[in-house]
């Protein structure tokens, strides 16, 4: 059971108000798509969910835990980047198991392969 709640989210880039008072509740196993013209704030909302943008106000909750100010590497939140973000200096295998190695799951997964 995981529920994501966004409360009164505001994101400012300098003077530019990119995201204005957004409220959103994503229920467990629900699939949500954000649609909109470019520059309307889709990426900003996603990046604040993953922790790459610090909201200027508002809260992001996973279940009842407030993760608004948690650093990205401590969040349990998967993200696929717009431009894939594959590391050119690593092999395909190293790219795939990078996250698993950090979670110390690599060996178990390697056995499956």
């Amino acid at each position: 059971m995981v529920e994501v709640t966004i409360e009164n989210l505001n994101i400012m880039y300098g003077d530019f108000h990119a995201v204005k008072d957004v409220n959103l509740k994503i229920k467990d196993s629900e699939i949500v798509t954000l649609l909109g013209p470019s520059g309307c704030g889709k990426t900003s909302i996603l990046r604040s969910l993953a922790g790459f943008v610090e909201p200027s106000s508002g809260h992001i909750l996973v279940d009842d835990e407030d993760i608004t100010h948690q650093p990205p590497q401590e969040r349990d939140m998967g993200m696929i980047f717009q431009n894939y973000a594959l590391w050119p200096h690593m092999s395909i295998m190293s790219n795939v198991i990078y996250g698993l190695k950090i979670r110390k799951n690599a060996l178990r997964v390697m056995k499956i392969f």
Partner: protein
Amino acid sequence: MTEQKLTTETVVTRAKPTFLKRIWFTFKSDRLSWSIIIFITAFFGYFLIAPLASILVTAVYVKGEFAFDTIGAIFSNPLFFNPSGGEESYFIRLDHRQDVDVYMIRGANLGIFLNTLLIGVFTTFLSLVIGVTTALIMARIEIRGKTILGGLLLIPLVLPPFVSGVGFMALFGDKGLINEHFLAPVFGIKIILEGIVAIIFVQVMHYFTLIYLNVYSSLMNNDPSLEESAENLGASKLRVLRTVTLPLAMPGIASGSILVFILAMEDLGTPIIFAGFGDVVAKQTITYYIAKHIFAGSETSDLAQESIILGSFLLIFAIVGFFAIRKFVSLKQYSMVSKGRAGEYRTIKPGIMLQIGLAIYFFVLLVTALVPHIGVIIASMAEPQVFPLDLSFENYRYLFDADKGFGLFVKNTLIYSLISTAVIMVLATLAGYVANRKKFKGQTAFDTLVTIPIAIPGIVLGIGYIRMFGDSGSLTIGGTVFREWTLNPIIFPGLILVISYTIRKFPFTVRAVYAGLQQTDVVMEEAAVNMGASRIRIIAEVVIPLIGLNIIGGALVSLVYNMSEVSTTLVLISSSKYGTLTWKMSEASGKVGELAAIGVFLMVLQAISLLTTNLLLKNRADAITGI
């Protein structure tokens, strides 16, 4: 009968043109490009490859037979090779002078060969540490006044030869401002850096900028998502740095450090200036030895075999480094792989402790890096020993006083540099265009030929010219153009000097041209071809207008380095009639004031040129410093 014969011949030719004809057809298909390729290859072959090859050959092949005895003699002579160190080799020594304790920090003195290697290794290592640290901080941490800081970090680049040594002595020397007026009266001690420690110190404060610029630009040019993706997968800051950030910046780190390694070992200005102040160890470096022992004796015009061998070692280190780094960088060229970039880099907001730490770091770094500049300005206007300073502009009067002879040196410097820069502008534009836009066999070799001079120690090229065109030269073909215009540097150094400037500073303009062409879509040239424009027309009407700023920017950099060229200048010029400013500076190494005034003059010229270049090229610093 005749008709039939003709037909047969035509058929045969069509089926299989002769080798020469095929070459002729290839040439005719693009006369201009091929003429450029042939001319540049011949020019570089004759004035770069041949002299260097003749030095390498002479190192082992003397008077018709292979001889290794001088190499053996070098490695058994403690002057050249003394791995155990001698009496003069100490890291630190304490002297008592009256009531002052003097700490002499010398490092080591392991003979000419190892001293030079130590200088290369330690200067590179320390420049690497400082350069990479500074680049990481500037690229990833939020600091107030970053623009100003970035500007200040460029100042060490504006540093004419000799100046660093003079500035260093004026502040840190035995009689310098800090020892004489701060450490001795307040603490009763003096700290004197000397020997290779002093040389390394001065070099690091100059060369770390090259690594900083290279690494900074690769840190800023990689896709930010590459780091974010790792963070998203749970990697800590340190792990991201270790597994993603630094590996991606490796090409920049590697090419910056190899450039520093080569420059540190071939640096002649710093040893000369310290030797002029009486430092014994500074005289025991490869470049200083070669500069002072060009000929086998005062009566002969034969080159000293020891100098040829030491020069060959220097050359081999440089060339191996150059090719190793080319291979490495081409294997690890990632920047083109990722698809555009998303967003900006997030910077870390430093906490109060980190802020204090950074403030101290930059304060110490900038104060030490700007030491030569401050020192040389003080030294040009006052005796640094006398405090408070008694300022006067007496030294500057020499600079523009025709009677004192400085006018001649300013004039010579400008004539040589400007002619060479003009030639570079034309040839490098053509060479850069062909190397970039024309596909032909040997393209890589051609590109290497026009960029390798950046790695060639000037002093070795200098003795190569004497070997080839000097009195006992073996290759004096075309030696005399007119009676006065000879290539023999002993009779008239001007012509060969301009050629050496042209060859050695060629890469800076070629690089700038490459940078321009990479930003320009080839479609614009194809459109012109499509409408029937010839190659020359395309260059004149499309290419030059599009990349004109790059050409001018690159040429300015070439000009700056021409004006402050030391090593070939000192080797080739033997009469003051033909002397340049740098030549005069090496002659006047005892007279600090005059030297400092010339230094400040060159510094101002360099600053103006580099500022203009930066404005023109908009921070394409890698065009200036890249290999």
